[in-house]
């Protein structure tokens, strides 16, 4: 029987090995780009998982935070000639401020006001991207966003971006683990279990929810910035309501209240999405099946693995150990 701590370490080592293995077994840009997408979505989903799994709140506007990071980086580097790394950091701070302003009034209230506020916010941001004139490039977006670089090393292909994004994902998992094993993490779990009892333990529930919400917005913003510098181009299309929902589905499928659930969910959804795209080449209607299929998957997961794939699989593993 493994101790909790060893299991955690084992999980981390296995994940790191899988991450390291992909570029070793393939140099296909297609597969590597899928790897990058999974990494970027994981970055967003990890934050959203903390919000949904521990703070017990749903955001229906995380695509907008991702978009603010992407557009923030694009605008600051293209229009103002900023250093790309500085632009990423400043865009993340600005996004954090926006999240703070949305979360502050809504998270004090009981109930799912955050979901409604972020839903509206997501729609507004999408409109702003579309109608932003020269600043955002309107519906056609902003092209020619520069690659990231460290000195003369330029992150100009999928492999290099992969090697930038995935260490960040692993770092996020370590940070989440540190958070959850601390006083603040216990406070979050307490809020999830019983808000009344949490408050009787001197926990300011609204402030803790706000903290997680802002953190999740920062994660989304950084992922969006990396996306913009990777594809060198942004337009409003990827940052709409559908992507917000897909992010929520990733968390639900993988399991929010687990370290790896959001990563597993991001991987599962991205792979399924790509399979449908491939299938769409031979069987045209398959292309439009993704929304339906995602709906079916969510229902099945909620029915059979209500805590998500990560916890569900682990429970089965533990049961086998015990037998």
């Amino acid at each position, binding site marked *: 029987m493994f101790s909790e701590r060893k299991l955690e370490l084992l999980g981390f080592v296995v994940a790191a090995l899988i991450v390291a293995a992909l570029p070793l077994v393939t140099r296909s840009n297609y597969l590597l780009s899928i790897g990058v997408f999974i990494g970027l979505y994981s970055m967003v989903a990890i934050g959203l998982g903390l919000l949904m799994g521990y703070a017990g709140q749903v955001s229906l506007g995380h695509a907008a935070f991702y978009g603010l990071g992407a557009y923030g980086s694009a605008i600051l580097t293209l229009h103002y000639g900023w250093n790309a790394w500085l632009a990423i950091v400043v865009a993340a701070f600005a996004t954090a401020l926006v999240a703070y302003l949305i979360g502050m009034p809504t998270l004090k209230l009981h109930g799912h006001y955050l979901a409604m506020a972020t839903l509206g916010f997501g729609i507004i941001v999408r409109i702003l991207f579309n109608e932003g004139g020269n600043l955002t490039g309107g519906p056609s977006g902003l092209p020619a966003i520069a690659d990231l670089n460290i000195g003369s090393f330029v992150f100009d292909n999928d492999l290099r971006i992969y090697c930038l994004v995935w260490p960040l994902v692993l770092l996020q998992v370590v940070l989440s683990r540190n958070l959850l094993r601390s*006083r603040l993490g216990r406070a979050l779990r307490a809020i999830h279990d019983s808000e009344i009892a949490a408050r009787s333990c*001197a926990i300011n*529930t609204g402030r803790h929810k706000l903290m997680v919400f802002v953190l999740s917005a920062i994660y989304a913003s950084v992922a969006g910035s990396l996306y913009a510098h990777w594809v060198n181009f942004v337009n409003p299309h990827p940052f709409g309501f559908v992507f917000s929902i897909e992010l929520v589905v990733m968390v639900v499928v993988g399991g929010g209240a687990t370290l790896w659930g959001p990563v597993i969910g991001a991987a599962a959804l991205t792979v399924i999405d790509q399979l449908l795209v491939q299938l769409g080449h031979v069987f045209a209607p398959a292309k439009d099946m993704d929304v339906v299929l995602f709906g079916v998957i969510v229902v099945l997961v909620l029915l059979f693995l209500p805590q998500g794939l990560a916890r569900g699989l682990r429970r089965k593993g533990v049961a086998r150990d015990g037998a």
Partner: protein
Amino acid sequence: MAHDSRPLLGVQRIRKVFGGLVAVDNVSFDVHPGVILGLIGPNGAGKTTLFNVITGLYAATSGAAMLEGRPLLGLTQDTIACLGVARTFQNLQIFPSMSVLDNVLTGSHRHGYSGLVPTVLRLPSVRAEERRLRAQAREALEFVGLADRAAVPAASLPPGQQRLVEIARALAGQPRLLLLDEPAAGLTTRETEVLGELIQRIADTGLTTVVIEHDMSLVMEVCATVAVLDQGKLLAVDTPTAIQANPQVIAAYLGEEGQA
């Protein structure tokens, strides 16, 4: 019953109305430092409501509650808890997804200060704080006799031990005032005896405590002072022996439950 000291908790004409129902009706009493006060009364008398008002869960219709002269009413629940008012709940409110130790550690939340950034980076200051809180929590667990169950999921314990987890969680915050809401509810006779002894030991530490209890023998045994509520009104505040002889109290109990 003369006290020179300033009361630790002053309940001053607290009134709480739900719609047309007066749940707590102009109740006033003082709890002096180090005293353990028993709050008794038939079901629906307003005991839990009074706790809920003092701890900020419900807004009072009128009245005041003072902790060492500082007004509590109007403050949020977490602020009141932060000032050192700890409580347990009549219907158990443990954190079911957490281990026994983590439950109790959560009770010491008010003694930690680390912010988000130091926490996610697990800086040495955070580790030191964690060690300090763990020591506090272990002490509380030992005090209630659950040290050997620290790693067990709290939800897997029998209800009697879950009560002890709640008490340990309240103690881990090293409160100035402890409010226990029917800690013996649902316990076996044997467990109730152990609980009585535990409350006695809490009293011996000098922690000011108010305990709501139905079990009369337990109240008479451990409480120096007893306050009786009936239909929201305070009938009497006196020593246990005087309370047992008080005709109004006897009438209230015989009328409602046919027991004394």
